Protein backbone atom coordinates (compact mmCIF):
# COMPACT_ATOMS: atom_id res chain seq x y z
CA UNK A 1 0.00 0.00 0.00
CA UNK A 2 1.69 3.13 -1.06
CA UNK A 3 0.37 6.08 0.71
CA UNK A 4 3.22 8.46 0.76
CA UNK A 5 3.56 9.61 4.30
CA UNK A 6 6.40 11.88 3.64
CA UNK A 7 5.27 14.28 1.02
CA UNK A 8 8.79 15.45 0.30
CA UNK A 9 8.53 13.95 -3.10
CA UNK A 10 5.73 15.46 -5.05
CA UNK A 11 4.22 17.04 -1.99
CA UNK A 12 2.79 19.88 -3.98
CA UNK A 13 1.13 17.52 -6.42
CA UNK A 14 -2.22 16.46 -5.11
CA UNK A 15 -3.49 13.15 -6.21
CA UNK A 16 -4.68 13.12 -9.80
CA UNK A 17 -4.49 16.71 -10.92
CA UNK A 18 -1.62 15.94 -13.19
CA UNK A 19 0.79 17.66 -15.41
CA UNK A 20 0.70 21.31 -14.57
CA UNK A 21 2.17 23.26 -17.44
CA UNK A 22 0.21 23.26 -20.62
CA UNK A 23 2.39 23.58 -23.67
CA UNK A 24 1.23 23.90 -27.20
CA UNK A 25 0.30 20.46 -28.40
CA UNK A 26 0.45 20.26 -32.14
CA UNK A 27 -1.19 16.87 -32.31
CA UNK A 28 -3.04 16.03 -29.10
CA UNK A 29 -4.47 12.83 -30.51
CA UNK A 30 -1.05 11.44 -30.83
CA UNK A 31 -0.28 12.08 -27.20
CA UNK A 32 -3.59 10.51 -26.25
CA UNK A 33 -2.69 7.44 -28.17
CA UNK A 34 0.80 7.35 -26.66
CA UNK A 35 -0.72 7.61 -23.20
CA UNK A 36 -2.98 4.65 -23.75
CA UNK A 37 -0.08 2.64 -25.09
CA UNK A 38 1.78 3.34 -21.84
CA UNK A 39 -1.29 2.28 -19.90
CA UNK A 40 -2.08 -0.92 -21.77
CA UNK A 41 -0.44 -3.35 -19.33
CA UNK A 42 -1.98 -1.65 -16.32
CA UNK A 43 -5.41 -1.53 -17.92
CA UNK A 44 -5.30 -5.19 -18.86
CA UNK A 45 -4.04 -6.38 -15.49
CA UNK A 46 -5.99 -4.13 -13.17
CA UNK A 47 -9.04 -3.96 -15.41
CA UNK A 48 -9.08 -7.69 -16.02
CA UNK A 49 -8.07 -9.08 -12.69
CA UNK A 50 -9.86 -6.57 -10.52
CA UNK A 51 -12.81 -4.95 -12.27
CA UNK A 52 -13.83 -7.78 -14.58
CA UNK A 53 -13.15 -10.20 -11.75
CA UNK A 54 -15.46 -8.20 -9.48
CA UNK A 55 -18.13 -8.44 -12.14
CA UNK A 56 -17.65 -12.19 -12.41
CA UNK A 57 -17.84 -12.52 -8.64
CA UNK A 58 -21.05 -10.50 -8.52
CA UNK A 59 -22.51 -12.61 -11.32
CA UNK A 60 -21.57 -15.90 -9.67
CA UNK A 61 -22.93 -14.81 -6.31
CA UNK A 62 -26.41 -15.29 -7.76
CA UNK A 63 -25.74 -18.81 -8.94
CA UNK A 64 -25.15 -22.22 -7.54
CA UNK A 65 -21.80 -23.11 -9.03
CA UNK A 66 -19.49 -26.01 -8.19
CA UNK A 67 -17.02 -25.32 -11.02
CA UNK A 68 -18.89 -27.85 -13.13
CA UNK A 69 -22.51 -26.82 -13.38
CA UNK A 70 -24.03 -23.35 -13.17
CA UNK A 71 -27.52 -22.97 -11.79
CA UNK A 72 -29.52 -19.80 -11.06
CA UNK A 73 -29.93 -19.39 -7.33
CA UNK A 74 -31.57 -15.99 -6.98
CA UNK A 75 -30.46 -14.29 -3.76
CA UNK A 76 -30.29 -17.52 -1.81
CA UNK A 77 -26.52 -17.36 -1.52
CA UNK A 78 -26.84 -14.00 0.23
CA UNK A 79 -29.57 -15.29 2.50
CA UNK A 80 -27.45 -18.30 3.36
CA UNK A 81 -24.36 -16.16 3.92
CA UNK A 82 -26.15 -13.78 6.26
CA UNK A 83 -27.45 -16.71 8.30
CA UNK A 84 -24.22 -18.73 8.13
CA UNK A 85 -22.91 -19.36 11.64
CA UNK A 86 -19.39 -19.96 10.30
CA UNK A 87 -19.44 -16.61 8.56
CA UNK A 88 -20.49 -14.87 11.77
CA UNK A 89 -17.81 -16.68 13.69
CA UNK A 90 -15.18 -15.76 11.11
CA UNK A 91 -16.21 -12.08 11.22
CA UNK A 92 -16.09 -11.99 15.01
CA UNK A 93 -12.71 -13.71 15.03
CA UNK A 94 -11.19 -11.32 12.54
CA UNK A 95 -12.48 -8.23 14.32
CA UNK A 96 -11.03 -9.52 17.59
CA UNK A 97 -7.79 -10.34 15.80
CA UNK A 98 -7.67 -6.94 14.10
CA UNK A 99 -8.30 -4.94 17.27
CA UNK A 100 -5.65 -6.74 19.28
CA UNK A 101 -3.01 -6.98 16.57
CA UNK A 102 -3.34 -3.42 15.29
CA UNK A 103 -3.32 -1.94 18.79
CA UNK A 104 -0.40 -3.94 20.09
CA UNK A 105 1.76 -3.77 16.99
CA UNK A 106 1.28 -0.02 16.74
CA UNK A 107 2.19 0.55 20.38
CA UNK A 108 5.15 -1.80 20.16
CA UNK A 109 6.44 -0.31 16.91
CA UNK A 110 6.08 3.22 18.22
CA UNK A 111 7.80 2.44 21.52
CA UNK A 112 10.79 0.86 19.85
CA UNK A 113 11.03 3.65 17.31
CA UNK A 114 11.03 6.22 20.12
CA UNK A 115 13.75 4.34 21.98
CA UNK A 116 15.81 3.91 18.82
CA UNK A 117 15.49 7.62 18.16
CA UNK A 118 17.06 8.38 21.51
CA UNK A 119 20.14 6.21 21.50
CA UNK A 120 23.56 7.53 20.56
CA UNK A 121 24.86 4.80 18.26
CA UNK A 122 24.15 1.38 16.82
CA UNK A 123 20.74 2.24 15.45
CA UNK A 124 21.42 0.41 12.18
CA UNK A 125 22.34 -2.86 13.86
CA UNK A 126 19.20 -2.94 15.97
CA UNK A 127 17.08 -1.97 13.02
CA UNK A 128 18.42 -4.86 10.95
CA UNK A 129 17.93 -7.36 13.73
CA UNK A 130 14.40 -6.19 14.37
CA UNK A 131 13.64 -6.27 10.69
CA UNK A 132 14.48 -9.96 10.18
CA UNK A 133 11.02 -11.25 11.16
CA UNK A 134 9.42 -8.88 8.66
CA UNK A 135 11.12 -10.55 5.71
CA UNK A 136 10.43 -14.07 6.91
CA UNK A 137 7.71 -15.82 4.93
CA UNK A 138 4.46 -16.21 6.82
CA UNK A 139 4.58 -19.96 6.21
CA UNK A 140 7.99 -20.24 7.87
CA UNK A 141 6.77 -18.06 10.70
CA UNK A 142 3.71 -20.23 11.13
CA UNK A 143 5.75 -23.43 11.17
CA UNK A 144 8.28 -22.09 13.66
CA UNK A 145 5.63 -20.77 16.01
CA UNK A 146 3.55 -23.95 15.74
CA UNK A 147 6.60 -25.74 17.00
CA UNK A 148 7.24 -23.20 19.76
CA UNK A 149 3.60 -23.41 20.89
CA UNK A 150 3.49 -27.22 20.88
CA UNK A 151 2.60 -28.87 24.23
CA UNK A 152 5.81 -29.09 26.25
CA UNK A 153 7.53 -26.86 23.69
CA UNK A 154 9.47 -23.65 24.28
CA UNK A 155 6.51 -21.43 25.06
CA UNK A 156 5.19 -24.06 27.45
CA UNK A 157 8.60 -24.35 29.07
CA UNK A 158 8.95 -20.58 29.43
CA UNK A 159 5.46 -20.04 30.81
CA UNK A 160 5.73 -23.26 32.82
CA UNK A 161 8.61 -21.70 34.72
CA UNK A 162 6.05 -19.41 36.36
CA UNK A 163 2.89 -21.52 36.10
CA UNK A 164 3.98 -25.18 36.20
CA UNK A 165 0.46 -26.30 35.29
CA UNK A 166 0.81 -24.79 31.84
CA UNK A 167 3.96 -26.66 30.89
CA UNK A 168 2.13 -29.19 28.72
CA UNK A 169 -0.63 -26.89 27.64
CA UNK A 170 -1.58 -27.09 23.97
CA UNK A 171 -1.77 -23.41 23.03
CA UNK A 172 -2.94 -24.11 19.50
CA UNK A 173 -5.29 -26.89 20.62
CA UNK A 174 -7.42 -24.80 22.94
CA UNK A 175 -10.14 -22.59 21.46
CA UNK A 176 -9.33 -19.87 23.95
CA UNK A 177 -5.63 -19.55 23.20
CA UNK A 178 -5.27 -20.55 19.54
CA UNK A 179 -6.17 -17.16 18.11
CA UNK A 180 -4.02 -15.24 20.63
CA UNK A 181 -1.13 -17.54 19.65
CA UNK A 182 -1.61 -16.56 16.01
CA UNK A 183 -1.84 -12.91 17.06
CA UNK A 184 1.52 -13.23 18.80
CA UNK A 185 3.04 -14.71 15.66
CA UNK A 186 1.73 -11.87 13.54
CA UNK A 187 2.77 -9.09 15.90
CA UNK A 188 6.24 -10.58 16.16
CA UNK A 189 6.65 -10.31 12.42
CA UNK A 190 4.86 -7.08 11.52
CA UNK A 191 5.89 -4.77 14.36
CA UNK A 192 9.31 -4.30 12.74
CA UNK A 193 7.94 -2.97 9.47
CA UNK A 194 5.89 -0.36 11.21
CA UNK A 195 8.77 0.48 13.51
CA UNK A 196 10.74 1.60 10.48
CA UNK A 197 7.84 3.71 9.29
CA UNK A 198 7.78 5.38 12.69
CA UNK A 199 11.55 5.90 12.75
CA UNK A 200 11.40 7.83 9.50
CA UNK A 201 8.37 9.72 10.69
CA UNK A 202 10.35 10.78 13.73
CA UNK A 203 13.26 11.91 11.61
CA UNK A 204 10.95 14.20 9.67
CA UNK A 205 10.08 16.17 12.75
CA UNK A 206 12.20 19.31 12.52
CA UNK A 207 14.87 19.52 15.21
CA UNK A 208 14.10 23.22 15.72
CA UNK A 209 10.74 22.27 17.16
CA UNK A 210 12.41 20.34 19.95
CA UNK A 211 14.89 23.12 20.38
CA UNK A 212 12.11 25.66 20.73
CA UNK A 213 10.28 23.43 23.14
CA UNK A 214 13.41 22.91 25.19
CA UNK A 215 13.73 26.65 25.61
CA UNK A 216 10.12 26.65 26.78
CA UNK A 217 11.12 23.98 29.28
CA UNK A 218 9.40 21.04 27.60
CA UNK A 219 11.68 18.02 27.88
CA UNK A 220 11.29 14.26 28.28
CA UNK A 221 7.68 13.13 28.61
CA UNK A 222 6.33 16.57 28.00
CA UNK A 223 8.15 16.94 24.72
CA UNK A 224 6.98 13.48 23.74
CA UNK A 225 3.41 14.31 24.61
CA UNK A 226 3.30 17.84 23.24
CA UNK A 227 5.48 17.61 20.16
CA UNK A 228 6.38 14.10 19.06
CA UNK A 229 3.00 12.41 19.28
CA UNK A 230 0.91 15.19 17.74
CA UNK A 231 3.35 15.53 14.84
CA UNK A 232 3.44 11.78 14.42
CA UNK A 233 -0.32 11.58 14.11
CA UNK A 234 -0.38 11.09 10.33
CA UNK A 235 2.12 8.26 10.65
CA UNK A 236 0.09 6.65 13.40
CA UNK A 237 -2.96 6.82 11.20
CA UNK A 238 -1.08 5.34 8.28
CA UNK A 239 0.19 2.48 10.39
CA UNK A 240 -3.31 1.85 11.70
CA UNK A 241 -4.86 1.77 8.25
CA UNK A 242 -2.19 -0.50 6.81
CA UNK A 243 -2.48 -2.74 9.85
CA UNK A 244 -6.26 -2.91 9.50
CA UNK A 245 -6.12 -3.84 5.84
CA UNK A 246 -3.45 -6.46 6.51
CA UNK A 247 -5.14 -8.09 9.48
CA UNK A 248 -8.52 -8.35 7.75
CA UNK A 249 -6.87 -10.56 5.14
CA UNK A 250 -5.12 -12.98 7.49
CA UNK A 251 -4.88 -16.44 5.96
CA UNK A 252 -1.38 -17.98 5.80
CA UNK A 253 -0.83 -18.36 9.54
CA UNK A 254 -4.28 -19.90 9.97
CA UNK A 255 -3.67 -22.34 7.13
CA UNK A 256 -0.32 -23.43 8.52
CA UNK A 257 -0.93 -23.32 12.27
CA UNK A 258 -4.52 -24.33 12.99
CA UNK A 259 -6.50 -24.91 9.80
CA UNK A 260 -9.26 -22.76 11.28
CA UNK A 261 -9.63 -24.88 14.42
CA UNK A 262 -9.96 -25.80 17.20
CA UNK A 263 -13.73 -25.42 17.11
CA UNK A 264 -13.46 -22.71 14.46
CA UNK A 265 -11.80 -20.40 16.96
CA UNK A 266 -9.29 -19.30 14.32
CA UNK A 267 -11.63 -19.33 11.35
CA UNK A 268 -11.21 -16.07 9.41
CA UNK A 269 -13.20 -14.76 6.44
CA UNK A 270 -10.44 -15.36 3.90
CA UNK A 271 -9.91 -18.88 5.20
CA UNK A 272 -13.66 -19.53 5.12
CA UNK A 273 -14.01 -18.22 1.57
CA UNK A 274 -10.99 -20.27 0.51
CA UNK A 275 -12.38 -23.49 1.95
CA UNK A 276 -15.89 -22.88 0.67
CA UNK A 277 -14.72 -22.07 -2.84
CA UNK A 278 -11.79 -24.43 -3.26
CA UNK A 279 -12.50 -27.35 -0.93
CA UNK A 280 -16.30 -27.54 -0.83
CA UNK A 281 -16.81 -25.96 -4.24
CA UNK A 282 -19.68 -23.77 -3.07
CA UNK A 283 -18.41 -21.05 -5.35
CA UNK A 284 -21.60 -18.99 -5.44
CA UNK A 285 -21.85 -18.87 -1.66
CA UNK A 286 -18.18 -17.96 -1.36
CA UNK A 287 -18.66 -15.09 -3.81
CA UNK A 288 -21.69 -13.80 -1.91
CA UNK A 289 -19.74 -13.85 1.34
CA UNK A 290 -16.82 -12.13 -0.33
CA UNK A 291 -19.14 -9.37 -1.51
CA UNK A 292 -20.67 -8.82 1.89
CA UNK A 293 -17.18 -8.65 3.33
CA UNK A 294 -16.11 -6.24 0.63
CA UNK A 295 -18.96 -3.87 1.42
CA UNK A 296 -18.03 -3.92 5.10
CA UNK A 297 -14.35 -3.29 4.44
CA UNK A 298 -15.14 -0.65 1.84
CA UNK A 299 -17.29 1.33 4.25
CA UNK A 300 -14.72 0.93 6.96
CA UNK A 301 -11.83 2.05 4.75
CA UNK A 302 -13.77 5.05 3.46
CA UNK A 303 -14.32 6.22 7.01
CA UNK A 304 -10.67 5.70 7.88
CA UNK A 305 -9.45 7.32 4.69
CA UNK A 306 -11.46 10.42 5.47
CA UNK A 307 -9.42 10.74 8.63
CA UNK A 308 -6.17 10.22 6.76
CA UNK A 309 -6.93 12.76 4.06
CA UNK A 310 -7.53 15.47 6.58
CA UNK A 311 -4.48 14.75 8.63
CA UNK A 312 -1.85 13.58 6.23
CA UNK A 313 -0.24 16.94 5.66
CA UNK A 314 1.49 18.95 8.30
Amino acid sequence: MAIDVRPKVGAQAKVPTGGGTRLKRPRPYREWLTSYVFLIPAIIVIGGFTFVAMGVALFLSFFKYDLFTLQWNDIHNYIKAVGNADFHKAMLNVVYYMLVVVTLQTILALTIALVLDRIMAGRGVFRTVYYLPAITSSVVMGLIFSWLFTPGGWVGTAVGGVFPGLRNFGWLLDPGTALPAIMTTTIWSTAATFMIVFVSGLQDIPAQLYEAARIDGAVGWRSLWNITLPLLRPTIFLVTVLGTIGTLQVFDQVYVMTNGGPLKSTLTPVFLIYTEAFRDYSVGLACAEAFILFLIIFTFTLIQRRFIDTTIEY
Partner: protein
Amino acid sequence: MATAVAMGKTPARGLAIRQILLYVGLILFGVLTLSPFILSILGAFKSTVEIGAYPPTFLPQVWHPDNFIQVWKLFPLFPRWFLNSLGLSVTVMVLNVLFCAMAGYAFSRLEFPGRNILFLAVLATLMIPLQVTMVPKFIMLARLHLVNTYPAVILPNVSTAAGIFLMTQFMKAIPKELEEAARIDGAGKFTTFWRVILPLSVPAMTALAIFSFQGQWNDFLWPLIVLTSPHLWTLPLGLAGFSTEYVSNTNWVLVGSIFTTIPMAILVFVFQRYIVKSVATTGGK
Protein backbone atom coordinates in the same frame (compact mmCIF):
# COMPACT_ATOMS: atom_id res chain seq x y z
CA MET B 1 18.80 12.25 17.47
CA ALA B 2 16.71 15.33 17.66
CA THR B 3 15.54 14.38 21.09
CA ALA B 4 19.01 13.47 22.22
CA VAL B 5 19.88 17.08 21.54
CA ALA B 6 16.80 18.13 23.40
CA MET B 7 17.98 16.23 26.43
CA GLY B 8 21.28 18.03 26.48
CA LYS B 9 20.16 19.82 29.62
CA THR B 10 20.13 16.59 31.64
CA PRO B 11 23.29 16.06 33.66
CA ALA B 12 25.82 13.80 31.98
CA ARG B 13 25.46 10.97 34.46
CA GLY B 14 21.70 10.85 34.23
CA LEU B 15 22.10 10.75 30.50
CA ALA B 16 24.51 7.83 30.72
CA ILE B 17 22.18 5.83 32.97
CA ARG B 18 19.28 6.57 30.70
CA GLN B 19 21.27 5.46 27.70
CA ILE B 20 22.25 2.22 29.40
CA LEU B 21 18.63 1.51 30.25
CA LEU B 22 17.60 2.17 26.68
CA TYR B 23 20.25 -0.20 25.35
CA VAL B 24 19.26 -2.89 27.84
CA GLY B 25 15.68 -2.56 26.64
CA LEU B 26 16.71 -2.73 23.01
CA ILE B 27 18.92 -5.75 23.56
CA LEU B 28 16.18 -7.58 25.45
CA PHE B 29 13.78 -6.91 22.63
CA GLY B 30 16.43 -8.03 20.17
CA VAL B 31 16.79 -11.32 22.03
CA LEU B 32 13.04 -11.77 21.98
CA THR B 33 13.01 -11.07 18.26
CA LEU B 34 15.84 -13.40 17.46
CA SER B 35 15.00 -16.26 19.82
CA PRO B 36 12.57 -18.03 17.48
CA PHE B 37 15.29 -17.99 14.82
CA ILE B 38 18.01 -19.16 17.18
CA LEU B 39 15.83 -21.96 18.61
CA SER B 40 14.90 -23.02 15.08
CA ILE B 41 18.49 -23.10 13.89
CA LEU B 42 19.53 -25.15 16.93
CA GLY B 43 16.48 -27.36 16.47
CA ALA B 44 17.45 -28.02 12.85
CA PHE B 45 20.65 -29.62 14.11
CA LYS B 46 18.91 -31.98 16.55
CA SER B 47 17.98 -35.59 15.98
CA THR B 48 14.36 -36.56 15.38
CA VAL B 49 14.19 -37.97 18.89
CA GLU B 50 15.77 -34.97 20.58
CA ILE B 51 13.53 -32.46 18.84
CA GLY B 52 10.55 -34.10 20.55
CA ALA B 53 12.33 -34.30 23.91
CA TYR B 54 10.57 -32.98 26.96
CA PRO B 55 11.70 -30.69 28.45
CA PRO B 56 13.30 -29.29 25.30
CA THR B 57 17.09 -29.06 25.19
CA PHE B 58 18.73 -25.77 24.24
CA LEU B 59 21.91 -26.96 22.53
CA PRO B 60 21.74 -30.22 20.58
CA GLN B 61 23.27 -33.09 22.56
CA VAL B 62 24.63 -34.46 19.33
CA TRP B 63 24.94 -32.09 16.38
CA HIS B 64 23.36 -33.38 13.19
CA PRO B 65 24.54 -31.23 10.28
CA ASP B 66 23.54 -34.21 8.11
CA ASN B 67 19.90 -33.11 8.55
CA PHE B 68 20.54 -30.44 5.95
CA ILE B 69 21.97 -32.89 3.44
CA GLN B 70 19.22 -35.38 4.19
CA VAL B 71 16.42 -32.94 3.45
CA TRP B 72 18.11 -31.78 0.28
CA LYS B 73 18.66 -35.35 -0.87
CA LEU B 74 15.34 -36.85 0.23
CA PHE B 75 13.44 -34.04 -1.31
CA PRO B 76 14.91 -33.23 -4.70
CA LEU B 77 12.07 -30.79 -5.26
CA PHE B 78 13.61 -28.26 -2.85
CA PRO B 79 16.10 -26.90 -5.40
CA ARG B 80 13.30 -26.84 -7.94
CA TRP B 81 11.05 -24.83 -5.60
CA PHE B 82 13.93 -22.49 -4.94
CA LEU B 83 14.35 -21.83 -8.65
CA ASN B 84 10.60 -21.42 -9.12
CA SER B 85 10.50 -18.86 -6.32
CA LEU B 86 13.48 -17.02 -7.70
CA GLY B 87 12.23 -17.04 -11.29
CA LEU B 88 8.72 -15.92 -10.39
CA SER B 89 9.95 -13.24 -8.00
CA VAL B 90 12.40 -11.78 -10.51
CA THR B 91 9.85 -11.87 -13.36
CA VAL B 92 7.14 -10.23 -11.30
CA MET B 93 9.60 -7.67 -10.00
CA VAL B 94 10.88 -6.63 -13.43
CA LEU B 95 7.48 -6.53 -15.12
CA ASN B 96 5.76 -4.81 -12.23
CA VAL B 97 8.38 -2.09 -12.02
CA LEU B 98 8.30 -1.54 -15.78
CA PHE B 99 4.52 -1.51 -16.11
CA CYS B 100 4.01 0.65 -13.04
CA ALA B 101 6.63 3.09 -14.31
CA MET B 102 4.90 3.24 -17.69
CA ALA B 103 1.52 3.85 -16.11
CA GLY B 104 3.08 6.33 -13.69
CA TYR B 105 4.56 8.23 -16.60
CA ALA B 106 1.23 8.43 -18.39
CA PHE B 107 -0.59 9.56 -15.27
CA SER B 108 2.02 12.09 -14.18
CA ARG B 109 3.36 13.59 -17.39
CA LEU B 110 0.89 13.06 -20.21
CA GLU B 111 -2.50 14.53 -20.97
CA PHE B 112 -5.34 12.43 -22.24
CA PRO B 113 -9.06 12.20 -21.80
CA GLY B 114 -10.18 10.03 -18.91
CA ARG B 115 -6.94 10.38 -17.02
CA ASN B 116 -8.46 11.35 -13.71
CA ILE B 117 -11.12 8.70 -13.87
CA LEU B 118 -8.60 6.01 -14.72
CA PHE B 119 -6.31 7.11 -11.92
CA LEU B 120 -9.15 7.07 -9.43
CA ALA B 121 -10.12 3.63 -10.68
CA VAL B 122 -6.59 2.42 -10.02
CA LEU B 123 -6.62 3.92 -6.55
CA ALA B 124 -10.00 2.41 -5.82
CA THR B 125 -8.60 -1.07 -6.29
CA LEU B 126 -6.49 -0.52 -3.18
CA MET B 127 -9.71 -1.00 -1.30
CA ILE B 128 -10.63 -4.27 -2.96
CA PRO B 129 -9.25 -7.13 -0.90
CA LEU B 130 -7.95 -10.33 -2.44
CA GLN B 131 -10.74 -12.43 -0.98
CA VAL B 132 -13.27 -10.76 -3.29
CA THR B 133 -11.30 -11.37 -6.45
CA MET B 134 -9.50 -14.63 -5.75
CA VAL B 135 -12.38 -16.90 -6.74
CA PRO B 136 -13.32 -15.17 -10.02
CA LYS B 137 -9.64 -14.71 -10.86
CA PHE B 138 -9.15 -18.44 -10.51
CA ILE B 139 -12.17 -19.15 -12.68
CA MET B 140 -11.05 -16.69 -15.36
CA LEU B 141 -7.58 -18.22 -15.45
CA ALA B 142 -9.13 -21.69 -15.54
CA ARG B 143 -11.19 -20.66 -18.59
CA LEU B 144 -8.00 -19.40 -20.21
CA HIS B 145 -6.37 -22.76 -19.42
CA LEU B 146 -3.72 -20.96 -17.42
CA VAL B 147 -4.30 -22.65 -14.06
CA ASN B 148 -1.22 -24.58 -13.04
CA THR B 149 1.15 -22.50 -15.17
CA TYR B 150 3.64 -19.79 -14.20
CA PRO B 151 1.67 -17.03 -15.99
CA ALA B 152 -1.22 -17.68 -13.59
CA VAL B 153 1.02 -16.45 -10.79
CA ILE B 154 2.68 -13.67 -12.78
CA LEU B 155 -0.15 -12.02 -14.69
CA PRO B 156 -2.34 -10.72 -11.86
CA ASN B 157 0.68 -9.24 -10.09
CA VAL B 158 2.43 -7.21 -12.76
CA SER B 159 0.61 -3.91 -12.33
CA THR B 160 -0.21 -3.10 -8.78
CA ALA B 161 -2.21 -0.09 -7.75
CA ALA B 162 0.26 0.68 -4.99
CA GLY B 163 3.14 0.61 -7.46
CA ILE B 164 1.39 2.86 -9.95
CA PHE B 165 0.55 5.31 -7.20
CA LEU B 166 4.13 5.35 -5.97
CA MET B 167 5.56 5.92 -9.45
CA THR B 168 3.00 8.58 -10.33
CA GLN B 169 3.72 10.54 -7.18
CA PHE B 170 7.44 10.29 -7.67
CA MET B 171 7.43 11.26 -11.34
CA LYS B 172 5.26 14.30 -10.71
CA ALA B 173 8.14 15.76 -8.75
CA ILE B 174 10.62 15.50 -11.61
CA PRO B 175 11.17 19.03 -13.00
CA LYS B 176 9.38 19.66 -16.30
CA GLU B 177 12.44 21.39 -17.75
CA LEU B 178 14.38 18.17 -18.07
CA GLU B 179 11.66 16.70 -20.17
CA GLU B 180 11.34 19.85 -22.25
CA ALA B 181 15.04 19.77 -23.05
CA ALA B 182 14.67 16.27 -24.37
CA ARG B 183 11.68 17.30 -26.45
CA ILE B 184 13.54 20.19 -28.01
CA ASP B 185 16.23 17.70 -28.96
CA GLY B 186 13.52 15.96 -30.93
CA ALA B 187 12.99 13.01 -28.63
CA GLY B 188 9.57 11.37 -28.73
CA LYS B 189 7.55 10.32 -25.69
CA PHE B 190 9.03 6.87 -25.60
CA THR B 191 12.60 8.10 -25.80
CA THR B 192 11.90 10.71 -23.14
CA PHE B 193 10.43 8.05 -20.88
CA TRP B 194 13.31 5.69 -21.41
CA ARG B 195 16.19 8.19 -21.40
CA VAL B 196 15.03 10.91 -19.04
CA ILE B 197 12.24 9.78 -16.74
CA LEU B 198 13.28 6.24 -15.96
CA PRO B 199 16.86 7.10 -14.93
CA LEU B 200 15.54 9.84 -12.68
CA SER B 201 13.05 7.47 -11.07
CA VAL B 202 15.57 4.92 -9.89
CA PRO B 203 14.95 5.53 -6.16
CA ALA B 204 11.23 4.88 -6.46
CA MET B 205 11.83 1.95 -8.76
CA THR B 206 14.27 0.40 -6.31
CA ALA B 207 11.73 0.65 -3.55
CA LEU B 208 9.06 -0.90 -5.72
CA ALA B 209 11.44 -3.60 -6.95
CA ILE B 210 12.33 -4.68 -3.43
CA PHE B 211 8.70 -4.91 -2.39
CA SER B 212 7.63 -6.73 -5.50
CA PHE B 213 10.38 -9.25 -4.99
CA GLN B 214 9.73 -9.74 -1.30
CA GLY B 215 5.98 -9.89 -1.80
CA GLN B 216 6.27 -12.53 -4.48
CA TRP B 217 8.89 -14.54 -2.63
CA ASN B 218 6.70 -14.83 0.44
CA ASP B 219 3.30 -15.01 -1.26
CA PHE B 220 1.34 -18.09 -0.29
CA LEU B 221 -2.40 -17.83 -0.88
CA TRP B 222 -2.41 -17.08 -4.59
CA PRO B 223 0.16 -19.69 -5.65
CA LEU B 224 -1.70 -22.14 -3.39
CA ILE B 225 -4.84 -21.55 -5.42
CA VAL B 226 -3.40 -21.66 -8.92
CA LEU B 227 -0.42 -24.02 -8.76
CA THR B 228 -1.51 -27.62 -8.46
CA SER B 229 1.57 -29.52 -9.62
CA PRO B 230 4.41 -29.76 -7.11
CA HIS B 231 7.10 -29.16 -9.70
CA LEU B 232 5.67 -25.67 -10.23
CA TRP B 233 5.43 -24.81 -6.54
CA THR B 234 7.28 -22.01 -4.80
CA LEU B 235 9.24 -22.46 -1.57
CA PRO B 236 6.45 -21.47 0.86
CA LEU B 237 4.02 -23.82 -0.89
CA GLY B 238 6.51 -26.65 -1.00
CA LEU B 239 7.44 -26.09 2.60
CA ALA B 240 3.82 -26.20 3.73
CA GLY B 241 3.38 -29.50 1.87
CA PHE B 242 6.64 -30.83 3.21
CA SER B 243 5.59 -30.04 6.78
CA THR B 244 2.37 -32.06 6.50
CA GLU B 245 4.31 -35.00 5.10
CA TYR B 246 6.97 -34.96 7.77
CA VAL B 247 4.89 -34.22 10.86
CA SER B 248 7.11 -36.58 12.81
CA ASN B 249 10.34 -34.87 11.70
CA THR B 250 10.12 -31.37 13.10
CA ASN B 251 13.89 -31.06 12.73
CA TRP B 252 13.57 -31.47 8.96
CA VAL B 253 10.73 -28.98 8.80
CA LEU B 254 13.02 -26.48 10.56
CA VAL B 255 15.75 -27.23 8.04
CA GLY B 256 13.30 -26.47 5.24
CA SER B 257 12.30 -23.24 6.97
CA ILE B 258 15.93 -22.18 7.08
CA PHE B 259 16.37 -22.91 3.38
CA THR B 260 13.39 -20.69 2.68
CA THR B 261 14.51 -17.81 4.86
CA ILE B 262 18.20 -17.55 4.03
CA PRO B 263 17.91 -16.04 0.53
CA MET B 264 15.69 -13.23 1.82
CA ALA B 265 17.98 -12.66 4.78
CA ILE B 266 20.98 -12.27 2.48
CA LEU B 267 19.03 -9.87 0.32
CA VAL B 268 18.16 -7.78 3.35
CA PHE B 269 21.76 -7.53 4.42
CA VAL B 270 22.93 -6.55 0.95
CA PHE B 271 20.18 -4.02 0.29
CA GLN B 272 19.67 -2.91 3.88
CA ARG B 273 19.91 0.77 3.14
CA TYR B 274 17.39 0.69 0.29
CA ILE B 275 14.99 -1.46 2.19
CA VAL B 276 14.84 0.82 5.18
CA LYS B 277 14.25 3.76 2.90
CA SER B 278 11.55 2.07 0.93
CA VAL B 279 9.70 0.71 3.93
CA ALA B 280 9.69 4.24 5.22
CA THR B 281 8.14 5.62 2.05
CA THR B 282 5.67 2.89 1.32
CA GLY B 283 4.79 1.37 4.64
CA GLY B 284 6.19 -1.97 3.69
CA LYS B 285 3.70 -3.19 1.18
